[in-house]
């Protein structure tokens, strides 16, 4: 039986930019930042209230074969993924906050781009922001 999720991934186009955004602006906690001699960088962060879930900030890059697939990701695929991301094709998750409007002001002051300001919904207060690559997130204060 699967008991819990320890890692999930957000795909990013540049890990340095991602680290600055997710750690310095969003205020997530840096868990691991280790580069391998072959160039692979294992970069993970966690929400402060959820230290046992690591979000892998995984770089979209030409790669070897994926598990269970013989196809490789090519350079043109990387470009296509980047363009789709910028178009807002990927909703990457929901973050929770105790005070959506306050956090909205804090994050906005730090330069986080919101595509939707806080709005009352039937389940709480919700704003939507995006990362520098176009991945977008709901930021919700549940009722």
């Amino acid at each position, binding site marked *: 039986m699967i008991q819990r999720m320890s890692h999930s991934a957000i795909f990013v186009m540049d890990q340095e930019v991602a680290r600055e955004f997710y750690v310095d602006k969003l205020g997530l906690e840096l868990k691991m930042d280790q580069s391998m001699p072959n160039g692979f960088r294992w970069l993970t962060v966690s929400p402060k209230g959820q230290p046992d879930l690591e979000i892998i900030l995984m770089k979209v890059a030409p790669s070897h074969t994926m598990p269970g697939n013989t196809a490789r990701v090519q350079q043109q695929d990387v470009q296509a993924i980047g363009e789709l991301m910028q178009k807002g094709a990927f909703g990457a998750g929901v973050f929770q906050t105790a005070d959506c409007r306050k956090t909205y002001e804090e994050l906005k002051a730090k330069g986080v781009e919101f595509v939707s300001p806080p709005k009352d919904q039937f*389940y709480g207060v919700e704003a939507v922001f995006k990362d520098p690559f176009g991945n977008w997130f709901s930021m919700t204060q549940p009722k």
Partner: protein
Amino acid sequence: MARRIPSTLLNDDTFRRLCRARDLLASEYQSNLQLEHAAREACLSPFHFHRLFRTAFGQTPHDFVTRIRMDRARHLLARGEMTVTEVCMDVGYSSLGSFSHKFLTLVGQTPSAYQRHIRRTFGYSGPWNIILVPVCFLSAFTAIE
């Protein structure tokens, strides 16, 4: 939509104070920082600190520190530059027995068996940090030049 977990959503100020206390616990993992000290950092009584810490982070302050110590111990053991006793002292344990027992409970191997396992897998000069990355990710997402 998101499942409601209001119990974890402490108000912002309390959550910030708890984060500050947790940072203190994390930075002082080698010493035996008292609960009262961490609670003071959060401006809470030890009882409320313990209760709210568990609500916010899903584990007790003691479990949190233990996890940090064991993570650090795994790093040091994998590096292979220190003996088990040296690692035990470095991460803040004074008793080798307690350290080994806790390590076995959380990691599933004794510290020495863990170190042997790493050496057998990667060799003495192996890239110790690789062990912390799932191999499927490492092989699938390594960039091709």
